[in-house]
């Protein structure tokens, strides 16, 4: 046991927590923003799958990870627009739109992968791992100065560009939501769309912006999966991160910092699982931990919310009695 703790107390372990959390952070930000705008995008999983595929393919054909990343982002945004069209224009239940996106994201990506590789490479491939070389992946970055700090340097430095971007976007999203007019409009539309509409804010436009943002973040998350986490795309590689993000959003109370911390909890649980298998234990014992943590987190959050509502109620009553 002590031995095991020793393994955990290494910089590599903390490094891996951060690395594993990065795509979840992106997806969580996506979930947070749409939730603020008053709806849920449960299609993040599918969006990430499509983005992951297109990222790796574009990267391969353009011969540059940068174009690949752009391709992933464009895919995420375009597909989110399609979701928006069905949800807002054709009044499809947004949950069903999400389910459809996930359905297509699972088998549809494999289909596209096979078809596209067949057209260009002459043989259908079930993954793009064979095409993507290290140089087509998004690079890792060594942080000058910080990497010299003992322990901390090894934890913080040398991450993928997107990992740093994930944390940066946490900050940026928070700023966007709370410091910019757009964020104000998003919150207003989500909480009381009549209030927003009554002062001339276009509710539809804000909803489209929110879902496009979720597409953009899914694009980053997908790109990370196929061009940083792994070398190349393979089927179902997102494996529930889009769903975990929905939970992280709820567990984090819908705020960026809370969402970030919740994502790190999942990262921790997953990193733990990997370590388990490293010391010969069954990783399947650790793998369900993040999902179980989610349910526990949701319950705690719901109970706290209920207690808070009760407290407010009685406080108001007290105040009234005193008057």
């Amino acid at each position, binding site marked *: 046991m002590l031995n095991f703790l020793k393994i955990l107390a290494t910089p590599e372990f903390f490094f891996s927590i951060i690395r594993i959390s990065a795509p979840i952070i992106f997806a969580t930000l996506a979930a947070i923003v749409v939730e603020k705008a008053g709806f849920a995008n*449960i299609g993040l999983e599918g969006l990430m799958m499509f983005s992951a595929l297109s990222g790796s393919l574009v990267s391969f054909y353009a011969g540059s990870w940068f174009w690949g990343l752009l391709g992933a982002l464009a895919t995420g945004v375009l597909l989110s627009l399609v979701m928006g069209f069905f949800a807002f*224009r*054709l009044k499809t239940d947004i*949950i069903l739109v999400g389910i459809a996106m996930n359905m*297509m994201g699972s088998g549809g990506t494999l289909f596209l992968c096979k078809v596209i590789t067949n057209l260009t490479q002459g043989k259908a491939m079930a993954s793009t791992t064979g095409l993507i070389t290290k140089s087509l992946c998004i690079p890792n970055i060594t942080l000058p100065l910080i990497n010299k700090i003992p322990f901390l340097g090894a934890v913080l430095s040398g991450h993928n560009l997107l990992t740093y971007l994930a944390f940066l976007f946490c900050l940026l999203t928070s700023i966007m939501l709370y410091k910019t007019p757009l964020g104000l409009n998003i919150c207003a539309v989500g909480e009381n769309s009549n209030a927003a509409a009554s002062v001339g804010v276009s509710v539809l436009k804000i909803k489209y912006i929110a879902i496009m943002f979720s597409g953009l973040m899914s694009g980053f998350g997908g790109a990370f999966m196929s061009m940083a986490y792994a070398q190349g795309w393979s089927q179902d590689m997102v494996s529930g991160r889009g769903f975990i993000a929905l939970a992280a959003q709820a567990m984090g109370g819908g705020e960026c910092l809370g969402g970030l911390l919740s994502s790190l909890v999942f990262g921790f649980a997953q990193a733990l699982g990997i370590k388990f298998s490293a010391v010969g234990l069954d990783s399947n014992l650790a793998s369900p931990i993040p*999902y179980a943590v989610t349910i526990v987190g949701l319950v705690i959050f*719901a109970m706290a919310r*209920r207690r808070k509502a009760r407290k407010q109620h009685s406080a108001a009553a007290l105040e009234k009695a005193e008057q």
Partner: protein
Amino acid sequence: MTKKRQLRFTIIRSLVAILIGLLVATVLIFISATGNSLQARLSATQEALKQMLVGPLFRFSKKNGTVFEFKRLADILAAMIPTIFTGLSVCVMFSANQFNLGAEGGIMLGAFVSAMVAIYIPLPAGMHAVVAVLLGGLAVAIVMLLPALLKSRLNVSEMVCSLMLNYIIMYVIKFLMNTYLADKSKGQIQSYTFRESASIPPIVNNAVFSGAKLTWGFVIAIAAVVLCGLFMYRSRWGYAIRMIGINQGFAKYSGMKVGSVIVLSQLLGGFLAGAGGGIEMLSRYNCFSWSALPGYGWTGITIAILAGNNPWMVPLAAFFMAYLSKGCDLMATYAKVPAQLIGIVQGVIFLFFAADQFLFRYRQKLVVKSAQEEIEMAKARKGGEANA
């Protein structure tokens, strides 16, 4: 709108949605078709489409032309067994407006529990399978208590909770298989073989129909449809589930126990998924070897949407999905178009079925027509009264 008009609208809408799905499929097939000239690609597309649309029931050969083949029909019917159950499961839960997506994990857990009963608990033949399937269903129903109670007591999203449960179920089963239950003498991770007494026997004699295999599981599935249909449309509980789904305030005002019914719908949904898993396991396999979620839960959601949450329509929707899936498989084999095309076609059809405002104008026209007729009728009645 009158029932007849409603029906006509539903049928037209469904056909248009399917048509759009197939149109998308055609475009994708054309893109993926191999051939140097346009001519060659067109004919390849045609061949692929033929395999996809007609292939599931007919075999093509140069000598005999297009021949109906019973084996293919039996395969489709067999493939319908698990998805009928997940489809019913989703129907029941969605009818109560409970977006529980746990049918996916449920069918795996049900299959696993039934398999364990089939291996470790000796029971007489006949009863063995029944007990195994019931226990499989029961296990999932108990697990579904979690999202159901959390929803009704704490208003925790049943959707997120059930999604998480899917993964937990999968990993716990994998862990148990790896660590305790695997037959170590085998190369891959699989359980010991089921006792002979537990298997669900086939209906049709295999040899006669060139290896066609269809077990009594199919009959049980159809029986489940009937029971489920009766439950939803002919019993007070099913009625309460549907009314809660349509207007929860109305249900409460009418004196229904909304919280209990919400829990009931998810328990029943869980039971159906679990039982379906058990039946699939005991009719198709002789040992448990699933190492990932089987996907039947998601197909079940599509089926429920296509069926409009109506259990009576589930077999038709399940048949359609199984047909489509088989068609895509054949297309992959004979026309070299990847079978996963189904993922996209399924998604497109699903979206158009679920789109509320799809063909909205057409529907509006029918509504107006009905309203006019109603007014005419009122006038006629008034006139009649005046004359009398």
